[in-house]
């Protein structure tokens, strides 16, 4: 047959070339508009507020002139599940333990209809959190920006839960000039608490690292909870069971089986571990009403543990351990505020701020054994990260090649049989 329209092909090629030139020109324009590379590592702050009120904040260093909001979140080291998308650049489904297990569920599995819980995304601008108009994959974070994420209820695209108010200097304190801090890229300082007075004290991070890690009990009946507390100073990063956490927190945990809690602390010298083993006893008939009532009261950040440590009167005569209500679980939002005191004021006395430590003398506390690496127990070891990549399954691919070639041969045979 006579193919009479070669002109179409030429035309298409010309059009494609024109498109390519347009794209290149556009990219050149955009590239020119970018700010010049600043000297030194660029830093941006990140604040993440979880559903239980705890707050993670960190200062993320990057070498690029700017990175996307999603990339900033990825470099925080928090465990993430992100739905990768083409144009809109990815949606955040889960940070830490809050969110949706995409793709087993939809990425906004708790945001379908009237009650909408989701990760709201903010930029710190002009002294307030501004709800982001674009997705994190399409927003460029520049040095000095602070980005916020908060899990909570709201209307998608309009409003959401708010992260606690912080400024860049609180999240990323200016580095002391006399201390060489060999920060590799993409590290984060866990909390402003560790360097609460960055400029006045000349060596805020050069002091010896202090690590405190305790629990109020190590044996609980099934269904009950216990409080884990830690406070670290002069360190680079803190992980509880491989999740990034703030430097100072008291957290209520409710394990259902025997659990080992490992606090991994990254200092300038290396890593240190503290561990606490919690045994869960078989359930008894103890009414556990205090466990639920305590959670409401414990949210008050102004109760210092020393006063709250007076044993709450259990409603029944059972000897409920008083520890459940004693240590106030501080909303870590307040903890961030500790760090937000202006650097010009001297560090306030301990009474002015809620300090979960030192532990009240009359509360039973179990301190972690120091300097002990956790037992090598599979995924519990901090070195074996849970997101370890399995390699290709070569055996299965061999079988696949066999099945596929069989199928291809059958297909070819069927077609020949019909066309004869």
């Amino acid at each position: 047959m006579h193919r009479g329209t070669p002109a179409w092909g030429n035309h298409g090629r010309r059009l494609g070339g024109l498109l390519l030139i347009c794209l290149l020109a556009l990219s050149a324009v955009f590239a020119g508009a970018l700010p010049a590379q600043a000297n030194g590592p660029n830093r941006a702050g990140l604040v993440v507020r979880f559903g239980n009120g705890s707050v993670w904040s960190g200062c993320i260093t990057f070498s690029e002139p700017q990175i996307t909001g999603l990339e900033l979140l990825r470099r925080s080291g928090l465990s993430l599940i992100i739905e990768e998308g083409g144009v809109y650049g990815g949606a955040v489904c889960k940070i830490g333990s809050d969110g949706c297990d995409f793709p087993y569920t939809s990425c906004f599995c708790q945001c379908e209809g009237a009650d909408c819980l989701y990760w709201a995304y903010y930029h710190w601008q002009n002294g307030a959190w501004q709800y982001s108009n674009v997705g994190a994959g399409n927003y460029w974070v520049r040095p000095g920006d602070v980005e916020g994420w908060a899990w909570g209820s709201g209307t998608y695209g309009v409003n959401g839960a708010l992260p606690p108010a912080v400024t860049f200097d609180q999240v990323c304190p200016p580095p002391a000039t006399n201390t060489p801090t060999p920060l590799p890229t993409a590290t984060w300082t866990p909390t402003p608490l560790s360097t609460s007075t960055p400029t006045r004290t000349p060596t805020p991070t050069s002091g010896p690292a202090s690590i405190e890690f305790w629990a109020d009990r190590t044996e609980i009946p099934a269904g009950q909870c216990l409080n884990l507390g830690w406070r670290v100073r002069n360190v680079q990063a803190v992980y509880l069971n491989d999740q990034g956490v703030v430097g100072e927190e008291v957290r209520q945990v409710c394990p259902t089986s025997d659990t080992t809690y490992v606090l991994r602390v990254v200092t300038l010298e290396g890593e240190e571990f503290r561990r606490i083993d919690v045994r869960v006893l078989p359930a008894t008939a103890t009414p556990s009403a205090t466990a639920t009532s305590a959670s409401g009261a414990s949210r008050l950040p102004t109760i210092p543990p020393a006063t709250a440590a007076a044993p709450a009167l259990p409603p029944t005569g059972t000897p409920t351990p008083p520890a459940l209500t004693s240590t106030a679980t501080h909303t870590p939002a307040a903890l961030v505020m500790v760090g937000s005191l202006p650097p010009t004021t001297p560090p306030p006395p301990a009474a002015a701020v809620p300090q979960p430590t030192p532990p009240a003398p009359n509360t039973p506390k179990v301190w972690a054994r120091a300097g002990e690496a956790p037992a090598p127990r599979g995924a519990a070891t901090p070195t074996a990260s849970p997101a370890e990549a399995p390699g290709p399954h070569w055996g299965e691919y061999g079988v696949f090649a066999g099945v596929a070639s069989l199928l291809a041969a059958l297909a070819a045979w069927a077609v020949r049989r019909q066309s004869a």
Partner: protein
Amino acid sequence: MRQDYHPLAWLAWATAAAVVALMTLNPLYLILLGLAVLASYRVISLRSPTARQWGAFLKAGLLIWAITIPFNALMSHYGRYVLFRLPADWPLVGGAITLEAVAYGFARGLSLVLLLMIFATFNSAVDTARLLRRMPAFLYLAGMITSIALAFVPQMISALQEIREAQRVRGHRFRTIRDLLPLIMPLLTTGLERAMQLAESMEARGFGGSAASISRLLDYTLKGMTLAGLLAVLAGLFARSYWSRQAWIGILLTAGGLLLMAAAFWVQGRRVRRTRYRHDLWLSRDTLMVASSAAAAAGILIARALNRAALFYYPYPPYSVWPTFDWRLGLLYALFMAPAWLLPSARTAQPDQYPLPREPL
């Protein structure tokens, strides 16, 4: 004896294949399903006069697939396996190009091409008029309109090809947009002529006059019932997704709406009496095709219910870019090749009692 399958058997095959294709992103299973569907498509296209038009449709799908892979690789810079890096100051495309992004684009594009292929096979194999005969009697008006609408695109494509060939014979060459005018004008004219012809022939055959007459009151009642039923279904679906906690409200509303509509349609259907001239025969190979499709779909669904990770594939971290493969599942996908094998071979086949119109050579 006819040389093809019953339209309902094709419907079962296409539904099962589409459900299965949408259920996984695992490229290995998708490739196997693709081979099975491709064999069916090739065998059908040897017999179907309309297959050539769907070939162009499939080429467009392949082109989209070829664009999807680099597009996704350039846009999504996430993954463990970095193939190479583009300068970071290039907007949007700058950054790491990862194996994960390539794999995701490949799998997504493949599932799209598969759906197009299933659709093309179904459309080349099934005469739309035969499928529309299956419609319930009360929908005769809608059925008529649908059949005209369905015939519109193939008719237009064939008219376009005829016009292009005629213009080529006259030495017309297409260089710029302006050269399209001699193509479009005759297309519009023939389209209008065809529509007029259709309307006249329908009127000549007494279209619309076959239904028994009813009182005006009953007519309005039936229309009101249909409208109310549709609104109830809509409200029910909305309520179900919006107040997900109180799912029963939505279910109740939807069920009520469907019942109302069913009642209205039943009364409407009694008005229309239809006779059939040619009956579609249901042969044993139709049963075999439906059984194999159903078995494959059911097996895959059960495997998914037993182990949610069996079909699961998502290349980006924290999941793995390397797909898993179970040969038992793979063989289930191969069952979709049934239409290619159940037809009698071309040598032994008897000539068709009602031969299909062949393509003019």
